[in-house]
């Protein structure tokens, strides 16, 4: 009976203890690459979109060179070509490990040199398993059984199980600290639209990373993107910015 119950007042909605007002209305646009990449830490696992050059975040990868982040693990389908994008980041000595399906494209000379010099470690993952492991990370799946690689060199260190007479291996989620993605259009909510086969790894990497950063050609007004055609809803995206090549 000693409890004071005489405080009668209408709460102002910004009273301490209620929701804070430090966050602005939803606006995921950032001005430039430096603002987009500024807080990426050394040792980060970075999911890098693209299949060959289509959808590859070339500018973002090159800008990473100057951020101070080192000892990076890159998850990507390929290991870079020529001396731009991922190859430039590797050449700058910022990459200590690559997780990919196919690092031996013609032109992946920078990676192959560093690999043979023992400077960059490599984990080769079957291409569908690479995608599916990232989806598992994004979808809250703790692990999944797939027949891909069962019984092969790539499956030999994995847990095996026969299901309906078929040998499977158990694969675990592959989560990123950061996803770097190249797309076509965005809005301030972070909704993303891709172009043709450049879509490839963008959607799955966006959902599999803690921090998702998307470079687009154009940012449009909220409501301009067709809601049926938004491939990556803004819930998976943290930062968008415009940078044309």
């Amino acid at each position, binding site marked *: *009976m000693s*409890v004071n*119950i005489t*405080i*009668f*007042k*209408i*709460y102002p*909605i910004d009273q301490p*203890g*209620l*929701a*804070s*007002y430090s*966050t*602005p*209305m*939803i606006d995921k646009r950032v001005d430039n690459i430096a603002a987009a990449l500024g807080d990426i830490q050394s040792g980060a696992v970075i999911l890098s979109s693209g299949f060959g050059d289509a959808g590859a975040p070339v500018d973002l990868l090159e800008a990473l060179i100057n951020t101070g982040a080192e000892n990076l693990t890159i998850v990507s389908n390929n290991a870079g070509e020529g001396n731009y994008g991922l190859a430039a980041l590797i050449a700058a000595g910022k990459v200590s490990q690559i997780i990919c399906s196919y690092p031996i494209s013609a032109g992946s000379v920078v990676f192959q040199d560093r690999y043979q010099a023992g400077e960059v470690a490599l984990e080769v993952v079957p291409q569908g398993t690479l995608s599916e492991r990232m*989806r598992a*990370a*994004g*979808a*809250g*799946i703790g692990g999944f059984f797939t027949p891909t690689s069962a019984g092969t060199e790539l499956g030999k260190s994995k847990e095996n199980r026969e299901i309906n007479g078929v040998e499977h291996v158990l694969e675990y989620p592959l989560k990123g600290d950061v996803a770097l993605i190249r797309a076509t259009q965005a*809005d*301030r*909510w972070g*909704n993303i639209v891709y172009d043709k086969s450049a879509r490839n790894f963008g959607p799955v990497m966006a*959902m599999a990373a803690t921090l998702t950063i998307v470079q687009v050609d154009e940012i449009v*007004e*909220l*409501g301009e*993107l067709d*809601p*049926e055609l*938004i491939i990556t*809803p*803004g*819930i*998976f995206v943290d930062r968008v910015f415009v940078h044309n090549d």
Partner: protein
Amino acid sequence: MTAVLEKIGLTRPQVAWRIAQEIDDGSYVNLGIGSPEMVANYVPADREIVFHSENGILGMGEAPAAGQEDGNLINAGKKPVTLLPGGSYFSHTDSFVMIRGGHIDICVLGAYQVAENGDLANWATLDTSKPPGVGGAMDLAVGAKQIFVMMDHCTKTGKPKLMQNCTYPLTGFGVVRTVFTDLAVIDVTEGGFVAREITAGISFEELQEKTAAPLTLAENWQTLTPPEL
């Protein structure tokens, strides 16, 4: 002395209002079927909250005007809704990627019972004469970053719903963060239930009597006094 007054406690809209104040600007929020849907009506005008509907909508808006209903645009409660600018459609599978993958900031659910360790019972009673139905409750319970429960403090027959241990089948373990009832706002902490706000007209002792687990009163507790709704 417990003077039982009429109309002590909040109306459902008032509880919904209170929950809406607790949701940060920019949050992605899933509202359970039924009373939790009312929360969307009370979002402060200067916040942008993105409502997710498990059937495949992000950026769900309010009910359409009469005559503007579209049978292909409904919420999880199967009621007609609208889509805000910036909203999007996706498959049911992708919708549950959002839920199960930890992308939903807050989920507001009803409950039969909540235990002091955060256990949630909201999908089945002990009545086996009707078929069970779970919907998305177990997915939301383990997937959403924060679970808010919106429920009456006691059952219609006056029995406590905040428990030491749930007696109904569980939906999730240790998942509830805060319970919003007609009488109080109660946080689930490592030390059990902590009353952060209590409605006018009821004492802490009276609240404890209606609660089947020990309650702690927060040091900086407040009286819960929403606008008329």
